[in-house]
């Protein structure tokens, strides 16, 4: 009994961690490249999920096959999220590339509030039911009470996306350029790298993984609302900091650690304080190990 409760918490932490991982990647990559906490990243996740919901509902009337609907909805939602992310970067961040970090950060906060209320005003402030996009797999029948098919898909897709992304960043030309820009923007520019393109690509990658995360979690929670992105976004940022901001494996590790902390914290201590665990964890990490679990300690260049 006790052990199965532990397993249950472990698995729910794993699911949470997977979602945080999908979100925190965007934070860590954007931070690595333009040193900005992209506050509006959580809204991209929310917009991805909302778009998927809208498209699924419309397509359902056409009587299309459920699997085809799911694929089409996810594909379009990803496309739209990427569109929003790139547009947002152009409008709110690009003009501020040479101003202070404080200005860019405030602009990002503004963007986040704007997008939330944009969706609230044009859609609704109520929770909407989100249709299950992931079918129940037959082979999951026996473990379904503690680990559903959706959870399995969440975990597997997170792993797959991580692997693809890591390979891309390690070996592709664009990936190498991204790393170069992250290391030294001026030098990268001088060696002929198109900075604007690299920044856009970074935002696109972040938004794609965020949209996938948003759709999967909404499908898992079976509901959606205009501000689901805000707390999730902040938590994912916490995960990125936890792992060492700028480091992709760090973001993944941080996400799982955070997911488990929350899930065990709520399971064994109190469910009222779910967010408090994450935030206390963040504060402790920043005070005692500000470079994070896998981040390298760097001195600010003077």
């Amino acid at each position, binding site marked *: 009994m006790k052990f199965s409760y532990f397993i249950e918490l472990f698995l729910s932490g794993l699911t949470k961690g997977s979602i945080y991982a999908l979100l925190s990647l965007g934070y860590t990559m954007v931070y690595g490249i333009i040193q900005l906490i992209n506050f509006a990243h959580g809204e991209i996740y929310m917009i991805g999920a909302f778009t998927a919901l*809208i498209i699924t509902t419309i397509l359902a009337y056409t009587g299309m096959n459920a699997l085809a609907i799911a694929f089409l909805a996810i594909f379009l939602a990803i496309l739209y999220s990427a569109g929003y992310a790139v547009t947002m970067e152009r409008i709110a961040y690009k003009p*501020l590339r040479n101003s202070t970090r404080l200005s860019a*950060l*405030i602009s990002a906060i503004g963007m986040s509030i704007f997008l939330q209320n944009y969706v609230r005003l044009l859609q609704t402030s109520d929770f*909407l039911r989100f249709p299950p996009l992931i079918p129940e797999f037959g082979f999951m029948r026996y473990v379904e009470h503690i680990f559903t098919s959706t959870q399995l898909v969440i975990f597997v897709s997170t792993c797959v996306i991580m692997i693809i992304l890591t390979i891309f960043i390690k070996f592709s030309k664009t990936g190498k350029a991204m790393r170069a820009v992250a290391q030294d923007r001026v030098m990268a520019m001088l060696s002929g790298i198109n900075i604007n393109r690299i920044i856009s690509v970074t935002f696109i990658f972040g938004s794609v993984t965020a949209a996938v995360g948003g759709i999967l979690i909404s499908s898992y929670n079976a509901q959606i609302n205009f501000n689901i992105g805000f707390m999730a976004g902040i938590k994912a940022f916490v995960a990125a900091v936890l792992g060492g901001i700028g480091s992709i494996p760090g973001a993944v590790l941080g996400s799982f650690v955070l997911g488990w902390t929350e899930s065990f914290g709520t399971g064994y201590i109190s469910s009222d304080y779910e967010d408090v665990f994450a935030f206390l964890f963040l*504060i402790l990490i920043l005070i005692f190990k500000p470079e994070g679990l896998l981040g390298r300690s760097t001195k600010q260049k003077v």
Partner: protein
Amino acid sequence: MFSIKNMTKAFFISLWIMILTFPLAVIKVNTIDKTVNWRWFNLIYIGIITFITAFLWDYFLKRNKEDNDRKKKSFLNIIADKKKYFNRPEFKTLFYGALFVVIMVFPFVSGLYQINVMTTALIYVMLGLGLNIVVGLGGLLNLGYVAFYAVGAYSYALLNKHFGINFWIALPIGALFSMLFGLIIGFPVLRLRGDYLAIVTLAFGEIVRIVLENWNEFSFGPSGISGIPRPGLFGLKMNLMQNSILIYFIMIVLTAITVFVVNRLENSRLGRTWVAMREDEIACQTMGINVTKAKLTAFALGALWAGLAGVMFAAKTTFINPASFTIWESIIILCIVVLGGMGSILGVIIASFILIILPESLRFFSDYRMLVFGAILVVMMIFRPGGIINAKRKVYQYKGKKD
């Protein structure tokens, strides 16, 4: 400005935005009734708005680049710049005299609702000026400012509930508690880099709210505390109207004190330290300035004013619960500081009145309030990072040799 090139550019931008906003703006699904509502008009509105915005955006972005800061003068700055007129003693007397009369007469010619809105605006002026010390002068982005406001409000509410302590004694105690809380939190977190500081303060703000919501024995949970007494005056019996007028005048006095103090601080050794720290923390250290200490004083003083405002809030509404102290409250106060101009007292006052009174008086506006606030933050950072009123540095006169 109206060249073909600009037109086509604006056209394509608005086309892109229309495509982008299409699913969210046009389609509205009802997942329960399984109905779809197509709102094509939204698309047209968005198209027109973005077309115009794209125009203006480009135009102002270019103008911004051309004008350098020295020459850039907005309408409001020109007013603020008319030092020549403004500094003439007769004008000054006239202005302050008129202001005084308006302030004195206002509560006696307006209704209860207007007085309350005015008091609320003044509370935000105080919050704005307090946060202005932290963000505007010190350059420390504090997204958990509302936590200090909450400490002030709960201090009064709880001290009164448990010990019957009255408003006048609670006012300084609440401020002090809030400041102590600022020192306790500030000590570990102020070493962090600017953007981490923003997140950590946000986290603290949320922790405070969640604790208030869940620790029923201490804070009475989400239902909050009601029946908080309004301030009295020498045991006089007052009706609601008279009491609201009293609160209004207390707020006027407190705001005046705040303006006075912040103004004094700004042009002092300490104020220079804060601004220097905002401008360049590293250079600041090599000037022999203890940055940690400077940050801590800014943080604690900011908290002090939030505490005062919190006590006033509790006394005014007679009821508080955690819902009044969400992150959005912090964002609104930040918006006041950003719109007003980092470090400008007059700007913060004007911005509070715009942001608090406008949505109160125009119901239409109140729905769009947060949307507009978000847009304000972005637009201000891009076009006028100095705020509607650029904080002017003090002009010093050299008085000649001293010996």
